[in-house]
C-alpha cells in the first residue's frame, strides 16, 4: 500500500497545525474516550446554541490520524445544526467502515475526504473514529440535558 494514501498532505497539515484544539467554556457536555488497544485518548466538549453546535473543543494525545481527525472534525462541524452534523457524522463512519470501497462525497465531507485512505488500514480506523465517536456521545448527552431542562 502507498503510505501517502494514508498520510495525505491534508492530514499531516491538520496534525502539525491542529484547528480549535484546547478545552473551552461554556460547554453543554464533555466526554473522555480511550482507545484501549493503543492508549489514544481524547477529552471533547460541545457547546449548543439552540439547534446549533456552537463549539467543539478538545484535547488529547494520540497519533497523527487521531489528532488530525479531531482537528478536521472541529473545522467541519462547529457551527452546524445538530441534524446536519449527525448526517456528516454518518457519512464519515460509513467511509471509515468501507474498507476503501466507499467513494467519499467531498460536498458532504470536506477535508475529511482525506481520510478515505485510512479505511484501508483496519488497525487505524479506530484512530480516525476516536474523536468522532466522542462527538456523537457528547452531542447525545447535550441534547438529552437540554430536553430535561425544558
Amino acid at each position, binding site marked *: 500500500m502507498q503510505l501517502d494514501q494514508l498520510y495525505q498532505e491534508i492530514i499531516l497539515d491538520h496534525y502539525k497545525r491542529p484547528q480549535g484544539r484546547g478545552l473551552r467554556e461554556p460547554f453543554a457536555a464533555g466526554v473522555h474516550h*480511550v482507545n*484501549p*488497544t*493503543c*492508549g489514544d485518548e481524547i477529552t471533547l466538549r460541545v457547546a449548543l446554541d439552540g439547534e446549533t453546535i456552537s463549539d467543539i473543543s478538545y484535547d488529547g494525545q494520540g497519533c497523527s490520524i487521531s489528532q488530525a481527525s479531531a482537528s478536521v472534525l472541529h473545522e467541519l462541524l462547529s457551527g452546524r445544526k445538530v441534524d446536519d452534523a449527525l448526517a456528516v457524522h454518518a457519512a464519515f463512519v460509513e467511509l471509515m467502515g468501507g474498507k476503501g470501497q466507499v467513494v467519499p462525497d467531498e460536498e458532504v465531507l470536506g477535508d475529511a475526504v482525506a481520510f478515505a485512505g485510512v479505511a484501508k*488500514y*483496519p*488497525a*487505524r480506523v479506530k484512530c480516525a473514529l476516536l474523536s468522532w465517536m466522542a462527538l456523537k456521545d457528547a452531542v447525545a448527552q447535550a441534547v438529552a440535558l437540554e430536553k430535561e431542562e425544558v
Partner: protein
Amino acid sequence: MTALTIPAGMPQYDDKPRFDVERVRADFPILGREVNGHPLVYLDSGNTSQKPRQVIDAVARYYAEHNANVARSVHTLGTESTEAYEGARAKVAAFIGAPSVDEVVFTKNATEALNLVAHAFGPHAQDPRFRLGPGDEIVISEMEHHSNIVPWQLLCQRTGATLRWFGLTESGRLDESNLDELVNERTKIVSIVHMSNVLGTVNATARITARVREVGALLMLDCSQSVPHLPMDVVDYDVDFIAFTGHKMLAPTGIGVLWGRGELLNVMPPFLGGGSMIETVKMTGSTFAPAPARFEAGTPPIAQAVGLGAAIDYLNAVGMDAVAWHDKELTAYALDALDTVPGLRIYGPRVPVGRGATISFTLDKIHPHDVGQVLDSLGVQVRVGHHCAKPICDRFSVPALTRASFYLYTTTDEVDALVRGLDQVRKVFA
C-alpha cells in the same frame, strides 16, 4: 437389518440432503492409516473428531504466512492475523445464528466456557440475575458431562447455593415430571446438556425453556456434542448461553466457544485478568473492555480460531442438514446391527429419534476395558470407561460403558466391523 420406515405423508428418504461419504473420507488423512495391521475404524468422534486436510492446512498456512499477535499491532502481519481471527469469530457467529459477532467468546475448550459462566455468579454480582447465595438454586441434570457438573459444585461451595438436578428415565431421557418443583423462583440458572455424550439423547428443551422464562432464571445449554452434529440457531432455541468445543467439530484442539446474549455478557464481571481484556490499567485499579474482549485475557488461541473457521467452512460446504441426516441413518443402522449381538445392552434411547450418533452399551459381564482392548486389536477405536459422566453410570448401576460414536466420515462398513469385533470379544472372554 431392517430399514427405518417413514410413514407416508412425511418427508421420505429421497428428500433428504446427502453427501458422498467416500469423498469426505478422502479429505481426512488419518483415515488412510492402519492400526494393529487392520484399517483404522475410528468410532470415537464423540471424544474428539478427526481433522480434514483443509483444516490442517489452514493452520499450517496461518503459521507459515501470516503469523503475528492480534489486536495489538498496526503492522501488516498483525493486521492480517487480526482479520483472520475476527473472521473466524464471524464464521462462528453465522454458524450458530448469533445476532452479533460480539456475542462469541473464544475460550480454550467447552470446559472453560462453562466455568466462565459459573464464575459470573456470586454474592456481590452487580446484576441481580447473577447474584447468588444461600437459598438460591442451580439446576443441572444427571446426564451431564463432568464439565457441566464440577463448575457448579465448586460455585455452590463458594456461595452456599444449592445444586439440584433432573433425574433420568429408564430409557435415558430427562425426567421432567417434577419440572415445576425443580425449576422455581429460587432457581438462578438451569444448565443442561443438549446432546448427551454417553446416552446420545438429544434433549427437547421447549418445556424447560418455558419454565425457566416463567421463573426468571437463565438457561445454558452444553452444546459440545450437538453443535458439531446438528444445525443450531441460538435465537430459535431461545437460550441465554451455549458452550461448545472446536476439537469435536473437525477443528484443532485448544479452542472452545462461549456464546451468550450480549446484554448478559456485558453485565458479567471479568473472569481471567490480563492483556487484551482491559480498557485501562493503573497500579491502583483497572477498567475492562466490553465483551467479547473482556473474557479473552492474554494471547488467544489464534491459529486454533483460524482452524475452527476452516472447519466451519467445511461443515457448511457439506451442509449441516446432510450431516444430521447421515448421523441419523447411521444410528438407525447401528442400533439394528447391535441388536443382533447376544448379551449386548444399550443405555440410552433405542430408537433413532431424539438422539444422536453415539451409542453406549455393555456386553455380558465383560468389562468395557476388555471390550475396547480386543476391538483395538482389530483396528476398531471405541471409548470405554465412565466417559466423564460418572453420575450416568451410577444412575444405571454400571461401573463403565463401551461407546461407539460416529461422524460424517463414518460408514456402515465401519459399523459392521464393530459388530464383527464384538463377536471376537465374546470369543476371547467366553
